């Protein structure tokens, strides 16, 4: 019997729309950043990448990772494969965004620090968070048994979430080159209003993109799982 994939396809469509909106949004942010935001005094145009770098980083650390961890925890608790599926796709998107951070970062670093990369605490940890996410997916690909796959990847992603605070605090802990928090900090954001506005728009757009991509992948995964179940039966 072939299961009814109607709802799955609906989800895919919804996800697609949101993702496209998100991508358009990124364009808008760039325009905002270049046209309607004052050029930062010391860094000049190089600082414009800020409006991509920070949102992608913030969404990775404070939205994608926590949700992945939450879903994983729920899976371990309730053994419901839907949570596992969500965790998996969310982790995928997290990996993508983390990659965005790891590319925009160096692009920014080159003009400012004169080098693409240093083994600064935050940089190192972010890189390894990315590795961890890669490992997470390699493991999922390697394990054919759904139960086991769910358990192991849940454990890994939960451990990964615990890295987030370390990454955030790394700038205080190791005082490397990387600048300190602007928004995610106790005191009020230290940023001129226009810049803040553009930054917040950027963060909003990336959240939208996260929701879109997760929905999309979740729908696709639904279809795949349904097919796999069909073959097995």
């Amino acid at each position, binding site marked *: 019997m072939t299961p009814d994939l109607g709802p799955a396809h609906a989800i895919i469509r919804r996800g697609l729309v949101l993702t496209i909106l998100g991508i358009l949004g990124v364009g808008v942010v760039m325009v905002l950043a270049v046209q309607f935001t004052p050029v930062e005094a010391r860094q000049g145009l190089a600082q414009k990448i800020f409006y991509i770098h920070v949102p992608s980083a913030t969404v990775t650390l404070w939205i994608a990772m926590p949700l992945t961890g939450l879903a994983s925890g729920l899976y371990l608790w309730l053994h419901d494969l839907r949570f596992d599926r969500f965790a998996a796709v969310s982790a995928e998107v997290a990996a993508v965004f983390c990659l965005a951070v790891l590319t925009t970062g160096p692009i920014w670093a080159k003009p400012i620090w004169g080098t693409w990369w240093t083994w600064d605490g935050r940089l190192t940890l972010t890189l390894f968070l990315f590795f961890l996410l890669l490992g997470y997916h390699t493991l999922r690909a390697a394990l*054919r*048994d*759904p*139960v086991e796959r769910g358990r192991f990847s849940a454990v890994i992603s939960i451990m990964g979430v615990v890295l987030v605070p370390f990454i955030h605090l790394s700038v205080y802990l190791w005082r490397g080159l990387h600048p300190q928090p602007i928004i995610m900090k106790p005191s009020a954001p230290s940023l001129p209003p226009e810049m803040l506005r553009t930054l917040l728009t950027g963060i909003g757009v990336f959240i939208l993109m996260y929701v879109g991509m997760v929905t999309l992948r979740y729908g696709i995964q639904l279809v795949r799982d349904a097919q796999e179940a069909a*073959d*097995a039966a």
Partner: protein
Amino acid sequence: MPLADPPLVEARGLARRYGAVRALAGVDLTLRRGEVLLVLGPNGAGKSTLLRSLAGLLRPTAGSVAINGRMLTRDDPDARRPIGLLSHQSLLYDELTLLENLILAGTLYDLPDPPARARAALTAQGLEHRADDRPRSLSRGMQQRAAIARALLHDPALLLLDEPFTGLDAVAGDRLRELLREHCTEGRGMVIVTHHAAEAWELATRVGVLLQGRWAFESPRPPDMAQFHRVYQELARG
């Protein structure tokens, strides 16, 4: 069923998939004290998978197992206590001597005076003179006997045996049958997986045939083994 006396094993709708392979596809099993179930089935039928699920070593994809009415799914150490499993592997550490292996097991099961119990178990298997050897340095049949000693050490109320007679010589085989007959008193139960019904026919009170992860036959022990064997051949070839 009255909670006063829950069955020894209560398994409902056990299913287990390995990727595309369905090792178990919905198996129910109720085993009461004093019962001995003999399980036959072709290679790959799911016999070992069934035993491992009953022992709580495998979390089934679907279904549940209760031992003495206690679920195995959550981590409940005492629910595992009555279980004794003899699997395809010996569960022995190759770098520890037989005695050390059994003493460790005894300690894990909180037995009084593990060394004494360990020696007794080895003697019962005619391995007392090999107590200080490593499993690796034993002949295959001796390894099987060591594994049996470990499985029986805490004399478990529920004994799960996966092809217990493999590698045993005639003498050891008879000795094991004897041991199992004594072991299987009122309060205890057994599941024996084998390819040769004759090996344990006398012990059995029930007989089941597993085919592609399902019961193809499950009943009290038929009077005539030869006839049952024909039936089984039918099923297996069918």
